[in-house]
């Protein structure tokens, strides 16, 4: 009972998502001892827990670096799409599309709704300098996100990082004309649908 109460206190006082004791041992003299404990704290509650830092978390260096620019990055095991999209749902759908075409996605990179030029630039630089990645697939459906802003970020990244990785960009939505023009100036083609971009990517890389 004391153990359960203590766990509940940790759960509520520390905004925990998970409090787990496993295993809990009973000694021969009747004492309970937690042999291992796992606690997961809600990132979003850190403003009221100044004693806990996100640096202490189990995020990888790349994931922490990405967070600085408002990006959500998760490393996957694949080799193909350095995937970058706006919105978690669309980014996952883009990963799934890569798989649908018989390839393995290398990452989840969500530049977020309303992505800025700088976050696109930093995100793309991460993908271009990742040796595992053979080709990059960018899937932007601009709602809040502006396609011209994304295009400027792409161009700036290419100015800063030398690369021979092919890049396939699907650009649709708010200010797409302007975005397409900016990319055309540096010789980058854009596609109407994610499927068309993925088809072109499939042809370009051979397994």
């Amino acid at each position, binding site marked *: 009972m004391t153990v359960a109460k203590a766990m509940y206190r940790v759960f509520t006082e520390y905004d925990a998502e998970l409090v787990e004791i496993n295993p809990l041992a009973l000694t021969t003299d009747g004492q309970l001892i937690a042999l291992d404990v796992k606690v997961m704290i809600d990132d979003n*509650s850190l403003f009221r827990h100044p004693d806990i830092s996100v640096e202490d978390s189990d995020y990888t260096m790349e994931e922490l670096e990405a967070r600085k620019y408002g990006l959500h990055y998760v490393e996957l095991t694949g080799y193909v799409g350095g995937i970058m999209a706006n919105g978690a749902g*669309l*980014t*996952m759908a883009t990963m799934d599309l890569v798989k649908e075409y018989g390839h393995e996605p290398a990452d989840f990179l969500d530049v977020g709704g309303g992505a800025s030029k700088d976050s696109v630039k930093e995100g793309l630089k991460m993908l271009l300098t990742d040796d595992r990645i053979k080709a990059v697939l960018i899937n932007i459906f601009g709602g809040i996100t502006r396609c011209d802003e994304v295009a400027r970020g792409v161009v700036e990244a290419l100015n800063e990082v030398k690369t021979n990785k092919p890049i396939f960009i699907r650009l*649709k939505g*708010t200010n797409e004309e302007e975005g397409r023009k900016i990319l055309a100036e540096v010789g980058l083609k854009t596609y109407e649908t994610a499927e068309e971009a993925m088809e072109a990517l499939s042809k370009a890389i051979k397994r």
Partner: protein
Amino acid sequence: MGMAILVNENTKVLVQGITGREGSRHTEYMLQYGTKVVAGVTPGRGGQTVHGVPVFDTVEEALRKFPDINTSIIFVPAQFAADSVYEAIDAGIKLIVIITEHIPIHDALRFVNYAKRKGVTIIGPPNCPGVVSPLRSKVGILPNHIYTKSGGPVGIVSRSGTLTYEISYHLTQAGIGQSTVVGIGGDPIIGTDTLEVVKMFEEDPETKYIVVIGEIGGTMEERLAKYIGSGKVTKPVVAYISGRTAPPGKRMGGHAGAIVSMGMGSYESKVKAFQEVNVPVARTPTEVVKLIKQYIR
């Protein structure tokens, strides 16, 4: 029972956090869309106006001046968002759309529970794009230019933002309009789940077909499938689920709910649940349009 669900011509909106960057910007977009935004609240900013909308210090004051306000949209920063939700509930507002991102999950647990007891509908939080009944009212941040065709037979309920716009866009391009589009948010604790929205669509005379955009994590899709299996949904349902290639145990970006843990909420489990009750699951977002078309013919 009117046409469309949750929001319509009679929706009178209060914007909480109206003087902030996002609050002010989306107030302008909602007004441009034709939404009846009647007042805003930011403590300490009473007496000002934002895009012609009067600002009050409290929700109570706003309601005293505009008693016909029936809906609130919240842009208040995460640290203070919970307080603003309680304020809206206690003032008697019956529909609250929460746009604010990064609200602590323990805060959401408490106010979602409070809202349920008070009979208040909460949409979100967060990562929630809000609700639109095309050309009638938009309470949210969905892009205006996607929703330019009035009404239609398809109701959409979604855990995602951008993916919803994408599917809406393709449906509209194919000449298939939408009655109401509801983004319920991507967190593990949300005010209104997929099943509750499907029940609303089932009762809405305008909606003839239902599109469910789900993702990995949680058991919302499985619970919906079970309900469909009991025969209580007479309208055809088509689903799409993202996250087939997401690794287990990893949280996918801003969608804290999109995590497969302890064997629950996998892509396979959701697809299987839907297939068992004859709900077709699209392999790609664009395939949703094809599947809907099969029913319309």
